[in-house]
């Protein structure tokens, strides 16, 4: 008895290799062709010439957020099954930039920093190896469920998946996540100081100094200061504080 993964699941698993041959000229084009190939083979496998032509049509420029690409892939599957593959390719170009913008903002600038901040907080609280586990579990529960859900919705409802994603209000959710991230980072400060500088008598002045350094360099980095320069600047301030403490014995 042989075990065969259903076609939709097989395509989803292949889509995890979406950016394997990412290149500057056509970006993720091969990723789409590679993922959807089992379906094309099933539909046009008897006619090699048509199959080759179909694969060629999927090799145009393609670039979007690799997670939100699952929705575009689902739509392509839906339209291909309904004999409207060419229509999907035309629409795809517009959908790519839309999903790219939503996905980049939500995942790269929302969920990822939030989960990374949570991991850092857990470490400084004393959670040890729960820190990387929290990042992996927390991020992937959200990432994989959204990725799979939009893929399945794309297959079932085709272009109507746009409404589902719109209904989720991801940009608004991202703003809330950003505020939560700021809260997690703020909560991190007292634990970070206690772990990195074990001088209990100087806790309050050190908190002021630490928050001051972060605020100063967040402001400077936003105005274009390179990270390497920020590290040098922060190092200089900490060094001066250490020297001042050595001479005047504050703590």
């Amino acid at each position, binding site marked *: 008895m042989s075990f065969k993964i259903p076609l939709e699941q097989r395509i989803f698993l292949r889509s*995890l*290799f979406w*950016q*394997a*041959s*990412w*290149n*500057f*000229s056509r970006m993720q084009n*091969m990723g789409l*062709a*590679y993922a959807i*190939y089992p379906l*094309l083979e099933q539909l046009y496998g008897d006619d*090699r010439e048509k*199959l*080759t032509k179909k*694969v060629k049509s999927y090799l145009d420029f393609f670039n979007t957020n690799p997670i939100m690409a699952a929705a575009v892939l689902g739509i392509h599957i839906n339209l291909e099954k309904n004999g409207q593959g060419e229509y999907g390719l035309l629409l795809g170009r517009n959908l790519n930039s839309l999903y790219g913008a939503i996905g980049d903002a939500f995942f790269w600038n929302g969920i990822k*920093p939030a989960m*990374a*901040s949570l*991991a*850092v907080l857990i*470490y400084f609280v004393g959670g040890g*190896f729960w*820190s*990387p586990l929290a*990042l*992996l579990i927390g*991020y992937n529960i959200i*990432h994989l469920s959204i990725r799979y859900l939009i893929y399945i919705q794309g297959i079932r409802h085709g272009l109507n998946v746009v409404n589902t994603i719109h209904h989720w209000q991801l940009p608004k959710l991202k*703003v809330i996540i*950003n*505020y939560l*991230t*700021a*809260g997690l*980072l703020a*909560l991190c*400060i*007292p634990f*970070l100081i206690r772990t*990195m*500088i074990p001088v209990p008598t100087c*806790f309050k002045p050190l*908190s002021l100094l630490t*928050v001051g*350094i*972060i*605020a100063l*360099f*967040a*402001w400077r*980095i*936003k105005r274009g200061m390179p*990270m*390497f320069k920020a*590290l040098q600047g*922060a*190092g200089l301030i900490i060094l001066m504080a250490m020297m001042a403490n050595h001479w005047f014995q504050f703590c």
Partner: protein
Amino acid sequence: MNILVSLTAALKIAGVGALLSLDRTAWGQLMISRPVVIAPIIGLLCGNGTVGLFVGVLIELLWISDLPVGAAIPSDDTLFAAVASGVITTIVTSRGISDPVSIGSLTFLVFATMIPLTSQGKKIDILVRKYNERILTEVETHLLVGNPDQAVSLHLKGLIHFLVCNFVAILISSAILLLAMPHLHSLIPESIQRIMNGLLIIFPLVGIATLLSGIHKKNILTLFILLALGFSFLL
């Protein structure tokens, strides 16, 4: 550390590091390639997961606002984390270092040497992506002769390009650092080592600053300052 031990350790770091770093672009994006995940894994492999985790946490937030949007290639913090945690834990384990100040100063030394080189990691990433363009020509050749199966499977060749390039980059950098760092570290006087250990705090601080600067909301910094001071005085 002798050359043979260094090379064996470097091979180990490069093998696992290159495999896990595929998650960054070529496969999955499951965050296995984040410093806080990859560093303790490599640390465990080299004999000290706790030190690996410490290294990962310090650099986790440093480049997090560097986003892979469009054709922009972010700085390679995975490569940095793999090499730094591998080198630090190997030296700590092989020399039996247990003093936190020595571990801290060694970490600072390795970071200070590696940070100016992070642009090289980015260049390697760009090189792989340029090299991947050759696959497109091969694909077209296969399609011309009516061979779509092979044309499509060439996509996975890009995975090998990423793997090989990361392997070579991690191998070379960790081998060099494993040979040089123990000697350099032993030359540093204890008083300077204490200062270096104290300076380690700049990495998470600048990491937090970088993350906050990447959030484009007007009042986010004010909110952070108020909350951070509140928590610091309450907890």
